[in-house]
């Protein structure tokens, strides 16, 4: 009959209206600055540089290998490699001194959050952050992030991406264990049987 659809529609909106006072189903708004949606663990916005220990400058894992700079599709990363080497504060390079980024800039006004820098980094040094309240009226100062702005402790990574962080930490620990086991084993085995150990090390490599 003519008009039945209109009445059905009116009933539905009326149910929405009155239901919004009683049911959460009919009032789905999350009032953003006061309430927040829980972001999924895989949520990502912009990269950050992981550091260990308390000192952001010394503890940076990054060794300025520039792989991410090369791989970045929109080319928003710019790295200047240091001339000298710094001691291994983060403790993942088994005490060997490493190069470090003298400058590490990411232009977040260009970054497209593709996460390729994270995928290609061999040192677990760059990860994705999920902070999104980044709006600024400063076009150049606010959107060109330098090393200091990018540095975040590993605990931050563990907080925002627990699963990934655990994997990353396990991988690093394994690597470290291997790296430590090698000289130790070599030292232990050296007097007794030098030849097989060398062969083993070679295969391992």
């Amino acid at each position, binding site marked *: 009959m003519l008009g039945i659809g209109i009445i059905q529609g009116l009933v539905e909106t009326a149910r929405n209206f009155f239901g919004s006072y009683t049911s959460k189903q009919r009032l*789905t*708004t*999350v*009032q*953003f*600055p006061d309430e*927040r*949606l829980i972001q999924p663990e895989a949520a990502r*916005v*912009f990269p950050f540089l992981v550091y260990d220990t308390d000192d952001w400058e010394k503890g940076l894992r990054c060794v300025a290998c520039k792989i991410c700079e090369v791989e970045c*599709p*929109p*080319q928003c990363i710019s790295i200047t490699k240091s001339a000298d080497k710094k001691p291994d504060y983060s403790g993942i390079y088994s005490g060997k001194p490493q190069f470090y980024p003298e400058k590490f800039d990411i*232009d*977040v*006004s*260009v*970054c*497209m*959050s593709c996460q390729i820098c994270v995928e290609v980094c061999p040192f677990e040094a760059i990860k994705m952050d999920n902070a*999104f*309240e*980044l*709006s*600024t*009226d*400063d*076009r*150049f100062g*606010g*959107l060109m992030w330098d090393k200091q702005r990018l540095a975040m402790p590993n605990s931050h990574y563990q907080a925002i991406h627990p699963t990934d962080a655990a994997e990353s930490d396990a991988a690093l620990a394994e690597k470290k264990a291997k790296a430590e086991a090698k000289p130790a084993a070599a030292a232990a085995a050296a007097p007794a049987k030098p030849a097989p150990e060398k062969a083993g090390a070679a295969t391992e490599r």
Partner: protein
Amino acid sequence: MRAGLGGVMDEELKNLKAELSKHGVFTTTFEELYNWGRKNSVWPLTFGLACCAIEMIATTMARYDLARFGAEVFRASPRQADLIIVSGTVTKKMAPQVVRLYNQMPEPKYVIAMGACAISGGPFRDGYNVLKGIDRYIPVDVHIPGCPPRPEALIDAFMTLQKKIDAQQLTGEDRPRHLKEDLPSEFPVPEYGEHDLEPPNNAEVWNPLKVIQK
């Protein structure tokens, strides 16, 4: 001398106001009312360009509800809009239209550049067909990085804009652009040249950092 005096007066006025509001007396200066009205009634232009526009639409929907700030009145006519959200890739074909829409808006007007493409061209920065940031032609108030930014990020930008409006003073050197008589409210609309848009940028609003070669 005058500026110094004004500064002292401002300071005293603020102290007085804080004191009064402690005692439950609300004082409203004209400037506060002006800024309060402007910041709480920012009507955006119904204008979307690319994928960021989808996030902009999502922001107005039930889950995020931009209407809470009194900004759900998306006006289709630039004459009635206060804010243009440049949401997405500005191609060189579209840039003149964006500038024209901005010109058609009445003062005071604001611009939010949403997403990487609108700020800098983003991943298409090196393309032949994409404008490398809308701030080459019109003055942008708030930039939201992200590709695309989350709806919450747009709300955050909106609140940043409100804070910015609230902090503006109606007199003095820091007064907003629309109150400076010598500054224009319209900007030249670029035209298609032989190789690029002519002019490639508007020198009045485009103040890039100078790269100093050492």
